[in-house]
């Protein structure tokens, strides 16, 4: 009886929170704050992906504030012990279920399209972004979102829909306005 209760508790705790991502980390080079023209390299690692109910990982989406431009991929995520296929850099993709993705990397399963990869990670990737020219303190938010069967519609019994976006940077452009001296007359 106690064993059954324990199993039920574990089951309910998993299904209640339904988070499949864990051990996320990042580095920003250089660290903020940032001014127009600054080029920032972002390293992001998803340490572990546990697909509840055989929920496979599909994509890493990069969410950027309006102050960024020139998003450039540098290192593609790995696929340790995963399905046959590859991570594809994509600025935009609409999944068959209508979900819009991008920009970021999405896994293209070589066997069955729409299945993602069975890999549990770790997944490490790198990209760079540039602070766009501006005279206003535009938003420089950077976050990562992990999408899986539940979101893309690749597996109806998926249960990782509530994975929140992982915040990497939350700031604004440091606008530098000139400070002019008084007008002088010779």
């Amino acid at each position, binding site marked *: 009886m106690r064993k059954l209760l324990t199993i039920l508790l574990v089951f309910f705790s998993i299904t209640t929170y339904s988070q499949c991502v864990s051990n996320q980390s990042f580095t920003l080079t250089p660290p903020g704050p940032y*001014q*127009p*023209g600054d080029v920032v390299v972002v390293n992001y690692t998803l340490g572990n992906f546990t697909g509840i109910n055989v929920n496979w990982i599909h994509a890493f989406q990069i969410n950027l504030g309006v102050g960024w431009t020139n998003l450039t991929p540098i290192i593609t995520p790995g696929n340790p012990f995963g399905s046959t296929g590859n991570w594809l850099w994509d600025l935009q993709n609409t999944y068959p279920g209508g979900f819009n993705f991008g920009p970021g990397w999405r896994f293209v399963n070589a066997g069955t399209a729409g299945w993602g990869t069975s890999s549990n990670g770790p997944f490490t990737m790198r990209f760079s972004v540039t602070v766009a*020219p*501006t*005279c206003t303190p535009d938003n420089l938010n950077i976050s990562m979102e992990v999408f899986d069967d539940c979101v893309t519609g690749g597996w109806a019994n998926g249960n990782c829909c509530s994975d929140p976006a992982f915040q990497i940077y939350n700031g604004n452009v440091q*606008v*530098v*306005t*000139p*400070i*002019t*001296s*008084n*007008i*002088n*007359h*010779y």
Partner: protein
Amino acid sequence: MNYKENKQVLLTLFITMIMMVTTIFTYGQTTINPDTVCANATGEQYFVTNTPTSTYQWTITGGGGTLQTGQGSNSITVDWGGVSGLYPNAVEVIESNAANCPGTPILLDVFVLDLSGNPIGPFCAGDPTTPLVGNPVGGTWSGTGVVANAFQPSSAGVGNYVLTYSMAGCNTTINVVVNNGPVTGPIQHY
């Protein structure tokens, strides 16, 4: 005050002096607002401290002023008109940095000063001292025969003179003539 205190005061004064000299050489003179220019002055130079990566947008408004040279740079020349008066915000500059972000507009009021002097004379050599009147009042008269802003024909003597009225770096002149008095012969008795 002992020797040590004296030394500290002297050192402080010396450092202050060095800082003042450095400031003057770095930023040049400081113009008091409003600035005063002479009517119909040409080539008047205005400037702000230069930042090499910045550009400067100047605007001249009122006073008959026209920007002659230097638009885009930190230093311009302006020709002014001849109508006397105070012109608020006559000179404006907006600096934009390398990212093309504008700074706060910097403004300067300009007072165009048109001097004039009331004509006097002609005089005879023995005439009494006559006050000199300039417009606007408050300036200074100079020239031959001028004493305390008044003209003394007796001091000047016979001749043609140019008297100058000066104020705030502006000048105007009037011409004054002192003639010989009549020469009367000795009284004769028929």
